[in-house]
């Protein structure tokens, strides 16, 4: 059996809540109203026979709509208004990473303009490898050519007696080959690895502190991790 004034009581409560939540963005307001509606419906479903008094008890336990609104409004993230400029500067970081791969000089300038990375990150982005893919295509071939062009000349008497040889021994030839492989790998994979590294470092700190964050004595992240906040629970 439904309480005689159930609909009025609930509608009146929700209306008060909606008024109290007026300063909150409408999507979030609707979400809270849905939560409270579901809460009331759940509590009512547990009663086989409800009276107006039961319903008033349910609403009483929910509390004053003003309390709920104060809780929600008091905890609105202060960084919300600071988001648009942040998104722009995120564009700068992405451009920096992309240009480090495609056109290194501009990429490096953007990398150092951005304040999203530490100096260490920036040095890695700049020097792994130096000149990025420009280096790969300009310095790489030079290096390869330099190594290959050191062809060796051997003077011998044709009977197996070597007079003089500029050929490297088998061991040092292997060392040269390994060195060459390292250089090739460094120049081919380096730019990608350092771009991935910069991207990861960027994701680790999704939100840079803004002036509004600093003004707030209890940033949300710290609050949830501090014992005193836990004591509230």
């Amino acid at each position, binding site marked *: 059996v439904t309480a005689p004034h159930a609909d009025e009581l609930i509608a009146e409560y929700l209306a008060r809540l909606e008024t109290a939540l007026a300063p909150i963005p409408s999507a*979030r307001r609707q*979400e*809270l109203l849905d*939560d*409270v509606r*579901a*809460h009331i*419906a*759940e509590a*009512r*479903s*547990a009663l086989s026979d409800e009276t107006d008094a039961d319903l008033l008890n349910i609403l009483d*336990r*929910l*509390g*004053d*709509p003003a*309390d*709920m609104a104060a*809780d*929600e409004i008091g*905890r609105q*993230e202060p960084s919300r208004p600071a988001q648009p400029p942040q998104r722009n500067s995120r564009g700068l970081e992405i451009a920096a990473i992309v240009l480090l791969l495609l056109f290194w000089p501009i990429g490096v300038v953007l990398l150092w303009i951005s304040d999203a990375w530490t100096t260490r990150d920036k040095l890695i982005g700049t020097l792994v490898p130096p000149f990025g893919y420009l280096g790969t295509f300009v310095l790489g071939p030079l290096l390869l050519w330099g190594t290959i062009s050191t062809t060796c000349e051997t003077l011998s008497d044709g009977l197996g007696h070597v007079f003089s040889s500029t050929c490297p021994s088998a061991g040092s030839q292997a060392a040269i080959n390994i060195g060459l492989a390292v250089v090739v790998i460094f120049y081919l994979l380096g730019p990608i690895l350092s771009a991935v590294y910069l991207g990861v470092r960027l994701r680790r700190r999704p939100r840079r502190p803004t002036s509004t964050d600093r003004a707030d004595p209890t940033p*949300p*992240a710290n609050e*949830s*991790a*501090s*014992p005193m906040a*836990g004591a*509230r*629970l």
Partner: protein
Amino acid sequence: MLTSEGTMYPLLGRLRRDGLVQSVWKESPTGPPRRYYQLTAEGQRTLSAFRDEWTTFRAAVDTILETGGAP
């Protein structure tokens, strides 16, 4: 302190915005659909970090109350 059941929803909403929990609506066998909350991976990490911190905090308070309260 939580003064009423209603203030749980702003709190849950904040945990969700911070990516610590996620929620899904599911049909309930007995009544209206329910919203179920589950810790995300980040929520799990935060919880275990908080557990450590809480243990230290509790031990400190215990120490203070026991030594401070004894005559």
